[in-house]
Every structure is written in C-alpha cells, then in structure tokens.
C-alpha cells in the first residue's frame, strides 16, 4: 500500500464517519474498531499493519479535520511499551481501554535521589503473594492527578548491581498510599508533581518483562519517549516560526531605545547566529543521507537549544535593563524576560542536563571513553548515598 493510497483511504473514512458533534466515547470506539487508533500495529493487535511514515500520514489527516483518537502507536507510551514487551494477557486487558482514551497514564521514573543517575533509584517494591508493595518517592511527574496508571521503575533486588535489580510495573495510581503534590517551579508555574508512595500495591500481573529486567524495559519506553519528543518538536516547529523569541530582538531594542547601542547590536547578532546555525544544523540533518551525520547533528540539538534560550534571555535582559527587576501584569516587558531567563533551565536541566548531554555526545559521537564507575558492578546496597 502506498502512502497516497493510505491518505486516500483515511480521508474517505473520515469524510464518511467524522462528526465533530459526536460523543467522544462513541468516536473513540469507531476509531478503535477501524484500526486507526494504532495504524502501524498488526491487525491482530488492533492496528492496520501500516508503516511508521504511513502512521504519520494518518495522524496528519486526522489533525487536518480536527479529529482525535489516532496516534496511540506513537504518543501513548503506556500502550507502546506493553505492545512490545507485555504478555498477551496484559495487552488484551490493558491496551484497549488505553487506546480508546478511557484510561490515562503518567511516568514514575525520576526520584529526588535519582536524576541524572536514574539507575540509582531507591523506590522499593517487595513481593507479597500476587502483589508487590511499593514504597518510595517519585518526582517530575506530569499529569499525575489524572492518571490511572504510572509507568513505574522500582528496586526489587538490592543484592545485585544497580542496573540489574530494577523491575518495571504498570502501577495503579488511584489507590490509598499514593499522594500527589504539585511542584512549585521557579517560573511560578506548576506543570509537574511529586508522587509519594506509601505501602501502595501493584498486582504481579502488571509486571512488565522479568523481575530484575526493568532497566531494559525502561530503555524501550525511553526510546519511544524520545521519538515522541522528536515528533512534538517537529510539529511545533512547523506550526510556529522557529525560535520566535529571537525574531523580536531588533524590535525589542528599538522599543527600549537602545538599538543604536553598538554593544546591544553586537549581542543581538551574536545570539541570532546561535539560532541560525541551529536551524542550519537541523536542515543539514534532514537533507543528508548519511545516518551518522544526521545522528551527530541531532545529538547536538539539545545543547544548542539550551545555549539559544539562555543567551536570548541574557541579551533580552541587557536590552530591557532595569525593567528586568520588575514582575507581574503591570510590568509585562520585564516579566516576560524573567520568565524566559528562568524557563531556559527547563531545557538545560530537563530530559538530561546539558552536562549529561555533553557526556553522551563525547562518548557516543566522538568515541571518548566513559568515566570509570567503581560501583557499576557492586551490589546496590553497598552504594554510598
């Protein structure tokens, strides 16, 4: 089946079935029954057996008419992880409600003591008959309040090395022993939560993979997450002009009355060069047929974006000067600059700090040796913390 045939078919189907006034649940069932919820999955698992690019074609056609319900094969990390590594029983029980949008999920990975070193996590799960009892604290969880399940990594064996004692669960969120507190961020917003887990339970039937095999399940889930982040970055780039913030530096300086200042002019050009070369790197990565070249450029993208955001905010601070001391709705100029200054850390810390990213670039792209890890193979309980 060609991409054009897929496009024609989905268009015809949407023309015949899509009605914005339809009940959401009924629509989700229609999409599910037709195989559009997970187009790239096998027909025996609710899909249509399409290719990955064809699945994006379907998503684009749904988006064009404003219809929800597709793309669970890319955006639903709960379902994609189970599809690849769950048992048949888990798939049949857990996936259909999820890809009909009836259940929601969140991620329970990071902990206060396990950020860059995620494998150092200390949330514990102890076997109790057909269940596991979970105790610990997770952090940086989006959508925790609305989630039915958390993708949970917990330590189940403290006598083996740190990567080998972790187990992956689909953890029920709506139970006693799960307390969710929003995190108050430096920007004043609250997108994330802390999740405190005290004696909460997860059925053994919700263990994904093998006990002690959670690290490799997590790698798959993280790979799907990175693919999703790439999709989101791509679609938001096509929706908005790239780095819209820097487009206004000249106008901002003109408004502030210092566009004639040679220092400000130099700084504007310097930061706009960072944004420009990042665009050109992305263009080159897209155009090349050399996969190593593309991978190198994409690996650099996050460090580059951190630099753009921090430097843009710094130059904006120089442009607005004393306004940057003021905040609140009466001071929109200074308020916006301060927001960007603080929000830049979202990118330079979130999803792997710039420093970890430089390690990854140094090791995976340039082939530099890893830092020695004296405790890599030691039993986890011997790790200093």
């Amino acid at each position, binding site marked *: 089946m060609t991409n054009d045939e897929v496009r024609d078919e989905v268009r015809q189907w949407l023309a015949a079935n899509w009605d914005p006034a339809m009940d959401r649940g009924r629509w989700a069932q229609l999409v599910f029954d037709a195989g559009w919820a997970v187009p790239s999955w096998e027909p025996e698992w609710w899909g249509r057996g399409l290719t990955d690019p064809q699945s994006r074609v379907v998503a684009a056609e749904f988006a064009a008419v404003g219809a929800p319900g597709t793309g669970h094969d890319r955006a639903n990390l709960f379902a994609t992880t189970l599809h690849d590594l769950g048992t048949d029983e888990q798939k049949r029980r857990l996936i259909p409600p999820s890809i009909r949008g009836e259940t929601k999920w969140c991620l329970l990975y990071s902990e206060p003591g396990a950020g860059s070193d995620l494998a150092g996590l200390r949330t514990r799960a102890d076997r109790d008959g057909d269940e596991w009892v979970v105790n610990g604290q997770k952090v940086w969880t989006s959508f925790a309040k609305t989630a039915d399940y958390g993708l949970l990594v917990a330590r189940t064996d403290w006598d083996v090395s740190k990567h080998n004692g972790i187990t992956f669960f689909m953890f029920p969120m709506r139970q006693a022993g799960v307390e969710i507190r929003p995190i108050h961020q430096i920007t004043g917003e609250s997108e994330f939560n802390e999740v405190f887990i005290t004696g909460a339970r997860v059925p053994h039937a919700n263990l994904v993979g093998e006990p002690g095999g959670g690290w490799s399940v997590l790698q798959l889930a993280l790979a799907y997450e990175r693919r999703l982040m790439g999709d989101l970055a791509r679609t938001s780039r096509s929706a908005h002009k790239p780095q819209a913030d820097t487009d206004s530096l000249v*106008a901002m300086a003109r408004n502030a009355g210092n566009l004639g200042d040679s220092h400000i002019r130099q700084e504007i*050009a310097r930061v706009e060069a960072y944004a420009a070369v990042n665009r050109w*790197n992305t263009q080159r990565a897209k*155009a090349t047929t050399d996969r190593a070249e593309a991978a190198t*450029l994409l690996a*650099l993208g996050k460090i580059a974006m951190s630099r753009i955001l921090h430097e843009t905010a710094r130059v904006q601070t120089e442009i607005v000067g004393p306004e940057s001391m003021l905040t609140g709705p009466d001071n929109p100029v200074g308020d916006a600059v301060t927001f960007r200054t603080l929000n830049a850390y979202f990118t330079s810390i979130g999803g792997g700090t710039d420093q970890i990213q*430089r390690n990854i670039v140094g090791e995976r792209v340039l082939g*530099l040796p890893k830092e020695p890890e004296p405790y890599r193979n030691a039993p986890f309980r011997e790790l200093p913390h």
Partner: protein
Amino acid sequence: MITVEQRDLAEAVADLLVKRSPESEVRRLMADDAGYDPALWAELSEMGLLGLAIPEEYGGAGAGSVELGVVMEQMGATLLCAPYLSTAVLAANLLVALADPTECAEVLPRIAAGDLIATVAFAEPGSARPPDEPRTTARPDGSGWRLTGTKTFVLDALTAQRLYVTAGSGVFAVERGVPGLTVTPLATVDQTRKQGHLTLDDTPARLVGAIGAGADALDEALDRATVALLGEQAGGAMRAMEMSADYAKTRFQFGRAIGSFQAIKHMCADMLLEAQSALSAARHVAAAFDAAEPDRFADLALAQAYCSDAFVSVAATTIQVHGGIGFTWEHPAHLYLRRARTDAQIFGDPARHRERYVRLREAQS
C-alpha cells in the same frame, strides 16, 4: 544538501591533499618565500579546481559556491599552502563581477590552466576592509593610467604575476615588475598564507571594466570570497576538533585516557558543536548564494561572524586539550590557531559582520 557529485569532488580533493599537503609539506612551504608548490598547483588545475569559479566560456567549470565551498573545506582541513583564495577565488570572482570581456578572455583561461597567479589589492593601511574611498589615486596617462598610493594585506602579493588594484572608483591591472611598483612581504602570524604590502608610485596600470564600477564589483567578489572562506574555516575547525578528540583518546594521565575526564570531554563536545555548526553555516550560505536567496547577505554576515569565532575557539581549545605538547612549535595545533586568527580578519572581523547583519535586519523591519 550535498549531492553525490559534490561529495565525490570533496573526497577526490581530500585524497589528493592527504598525499600532497601533509604537515611536513605545509611546514616546508611556510619557510618558503613563494609559499606554494607549482607541481601541486598544476595538479589542482588538471582536476579543474582552479576554474571552479570561472564560467565555462572562459575555460572554467562554471561551478557554484557549494562546489567551491566543499573544496575549501578540504584545503582548510590540511592548511594547504597555495594562492588559491587570492587567484582562483578572489581575482576570478572580481573579473567575473567586472565583466570586462577582454580581460576575462585573456586572464580567466590562464587562471584555470594554472598559468597565472593573480591577486586583488584593495585594503589600505589601518583596515583589512576596502576603504570607503581609496586614497590610492589613478590618473589617465595616454592610453593607460598611473596609480599612486599604498595597499596592504594583499594576499600572495609576492607571487602574483598580476595584481588588480582598486584606485579611485575603478579597478586596475598592474603587472609584476613594472616601474614604480614595490612589493614588500609582510611578516604574517600565519605563515601558510602569504601577504604583502604594495607601494605604487606613478605606476603604469590598465583600467579593467568601467570607471565607477570598481566598488560594486569588489563588494560582490569579496562576498563570494567570504562565502568560500566559510568553507575553509569550517574545514579547519573540523580537523582541529578531530585532532583533539583523537588525542583525548590516546593521552593517558592518572591511569586513564584524558578524554574520560568530563573536563576534557565537555570541551570536545563543545568543539564538536562549534565545528559542525560552522560546517552547516558554510554549506547553507553557499547554497543560498547559488539559489540567489534574498536573505543570503544577512545569512553570510551572521555566518562569517560565527565561523570566525568558531574556528578561533576550536583551534584555541585544541591547544588547551593537547596541554604541554600543544604549546610546542613542533605540534600542528598552533598552525590552526594562526590560520583561524588570520581568517577572522582577512575579509573583516566578526564585529564588522555582526554590525552588517543588524543593519540588514533593521532595513527589513
């Protein structure tokens, strides 16, 4: 987007230069007054590289900025010592821009054939950029002209058989060895690229193109040469970065390769970002010029400032990563820094290009 043909071209040049421009040869030519190998120059001509920027009707390849750029990348990577930038890039582009059919027909085929070294003398003492109004004067003298003044930072001034000199509002051809012309070598930090100083004292010259057309033609030629220079800077930065990463894998201290220390690893990652970004900038701007995109001048200004800073920064960091050995004359790290610092001045410094960028942006909004 680099095509298969362009990649093949780059690989052919790389293969040639690995054999014919190793460090030992670079060092030999650094100490040589002429500063290039005529046999290699002939090979560059046979490969069609000297005529890349020259239209086919004048014996060249009529290639674009992208082809020229990928060739410059390889030349920059090996610090090739040759009058390529002066002759095959700057002088050739100036003649194309001046569009003087007689001069083009006489000179461009000889450049492409490797039979003529030519250069352009535009800067005057105090700046590497063309002066708003040259102090060098031109006065008519029968069928010809006479030039008086001084020019400096002239690339390959000593080896050039023909010098194109800006004076008044025109460009004039001056032959090597004519009375009233004194060419003095400049003591340059970068010995891989020779420069000279010209004193013109009622020197006989021939007008090329029309009076009044000189400044615009020079601006166009300098922009095109600057596009080519981006490739050289990117190629040099890439090679210096690779040298550093390789060294960080093989140099052991404290029982470990130094590249396993984050202090070194992060420097290498930053160098990779700078060098790859410079390469993307060079390739993008070359393609933008070939496509005559409206934003190409703003892109060039931004890219030239960025690539200058990036090459200097990568070359400087290369010395630091190499530690003590990088501080020795025998190690090539400093040769890249010398080239980088010269490249960051020869067609205007980064601050000047940034200012040009902001002016272009102001004019848009």
